[in-house]
């Protein structure tokens, strides 16, 4: 069953320099229990897409399209209704666990917040739940550590606590925005293992936003590749690695360290001044006259494999 269905989503910021077109017509479905990776370079709009799902974008943003969660359009919900979705149905794990925690509240108090808000548990029961949760994300001595402040936690422990906070209300969907960036490699591996385990146990769906293809490959079933504001390729992890279709995806894969570390020529376009036609054509060695003029649609090239490129038209 489709849990979250994003249809023709657009998100534009209005700034003094003009409209920043961060998301330009994204269509994407997340099934129940599915783990979808959203990958792309810095500044391609993937975080904006994640924030748009929970309606967390600032007020100078116009968001168009539909975001159906269990059939209900999130974009037309009242403030009260959306607050009941946030944290309870769809939770978010942020990139930087230190700045995402309030320095003056203990870790226990903060991890308990979602249950206090949504399940109206008493303080004592909530704390009991927090300790269980911290145990399940493998924080040692949870009954001691709940009384500590975020700065007393190490980076890896903080990210574990953030994961616990995200999962404590047993949401149906987790949006994880770069959950392993900023952690060193060994801790990264631990966190990935942990996320795999807790997601498998809870059956929670996940939208993983990352620029790290290897992390996405570890954690996800499907991967959507984003290039300024659009999804340019969607495939299962296997297909994407074995048979990447879009020239950008190929370049992305070739830029991985174990595939030769070859950078893609050129830089990604500014979101204020996007090129006409295919957004990738200025950097594409296979670009034709048509690429410069027309915007390609997503073309089906295999089972659950779509690509936005005229090469396959």
């Amino acid at each position, binding site marked *: 069953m489709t849990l979250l269905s994003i249809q023709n989503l657009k998100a534009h910021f209005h700034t003094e320099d003009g409209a920043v077109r961060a998301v330009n017509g994204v269509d994407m479905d997340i099934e129940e229990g599915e783990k979808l990776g959203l990958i792309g370079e810095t500044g391609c709009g993937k975080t904006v897409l994640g924030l748009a799902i*929970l309606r*967390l974008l600032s007020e100078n943003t116009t968001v168009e399209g539909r975001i159906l969660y269990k059939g209900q359009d999130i974009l037309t919900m009242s403030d009260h209704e959306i*607050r*009941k*979705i*946030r*944290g*309870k149905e769809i*939770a*978010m794990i*942020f990139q*930087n666990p230190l*700045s*995402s*925690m*309030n*320095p*003056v*509240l203990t870790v226990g108090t903060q991890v308990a*917040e*979602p249950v206090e*808000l*949504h399940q109206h548990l008493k303080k004592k029961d909530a704390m009991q739940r927090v300790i269980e949760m911290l145990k399940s994300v493998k924080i040692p001595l949870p009954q001691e550590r709940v009384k500590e402040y975020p700065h007393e936690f190490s980076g890896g422990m903080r990210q574990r606590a953030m994961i616990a*906070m995200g999962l404590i209300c047993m949401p149906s969907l987790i949006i994880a925005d770069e959950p392993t960036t900023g952690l060193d490699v060994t801790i990264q591996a631990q966190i990935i293992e942990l996320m795999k385990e807790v997601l498998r146990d809870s059956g929670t769906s996940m939208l993983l936003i990352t620029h790290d293809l290897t992390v996405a490959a570890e954690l996800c079933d499907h991967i959507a590749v984003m290039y300024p504001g659009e999804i340019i390729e969607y495939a299962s992890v296997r297909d994407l690695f074995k048979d990447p279709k879009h020239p950008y995806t190929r370049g992305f894969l070739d830029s991985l360290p174990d595939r030769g570390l070859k950078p893609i020529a050129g830089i990604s376009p500014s979101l204020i001044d996007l090129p006409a036609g295919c957004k990738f054509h200025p950097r594409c060695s296979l670009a034709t006259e048509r690429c410069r003029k027309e915007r390609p649609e997503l073309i089906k090239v295999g089972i659950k494999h779509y690509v936005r490129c005229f090469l396959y038209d």
Partner: protein
Amino acid sequence: MSLYLELKKDKPAMLGIVIIIFFGSIAVFAPYIVPHDPLELNLEERLLSPTVDHPMGTDNLGRDVLSRVIYGTRVSLSMSVAVVTVVMVLGITIGTAAGYFGGLVDDVIMRVVDVLLAFPSIILALVIAGLLGPSLTNVMIALGAIWWVSYSRIVRGSVLSIKEKEFVEAARAMGCSDVYIVRRHILPNVLSPVIVLATLDMGHIILSIAALSFLGLGAQPPVPEWGTMLNEGRPFMETAPHLMIFPGLMIMITVLAFNFLGDGLRDALDPRMKEGAIK
């Protein structure tokens, strides 16, 4: 706990705490420790210099200065605590509203603040107290009406920077309402500068109350208030200087104590102010 350890190393701050606790207990237990009734007239013992029976002498109506000074502690401390509480609540509420909601609310509030800041505060207080008529309550109202501005500015500034922090966004992402975010996540983060300011302001407010009373706008005779006592002793300054020296000393010591404590708190709460941190 760590705050206390930090303060313990700061000798002036500790001295301040001791003096404040001492004066505080004097104020609370005033009726039990005064040697004489502070309002009792005794025209046979007018303008006595300090003696064993009257350690601070007597005033022009024969009242015991020590007893009056002790009762004055009560008036000064309770009034300044009341004023500081009121301005803190006002300043925090207004400042948070301005900082958090921004836009028009912010513009209107901050222009009012700018106007109020453009006047010397004591003159403004004089005008308000003058308009309302001389009494202690009116002095409190006057001081409350002008003193919240500095709090609202400080709070607004902190709120502006804190509301952009990621943990506020994280709180919103978990379904917190605006009110909850302000109460739970923003206010605890702005409290420490406010506490420092409030401690320092205790001294300023004691001074202002004394000043307004000295000018005849605050406490009215025969209420034993330090500023009023200074005013009453003024005509006898040359023959009986103790009438002004003792209340004056009390004002000075109390204000100093609060300033010492405020400085100490600021150093303890703000790591950047710590000695040796910038080297």
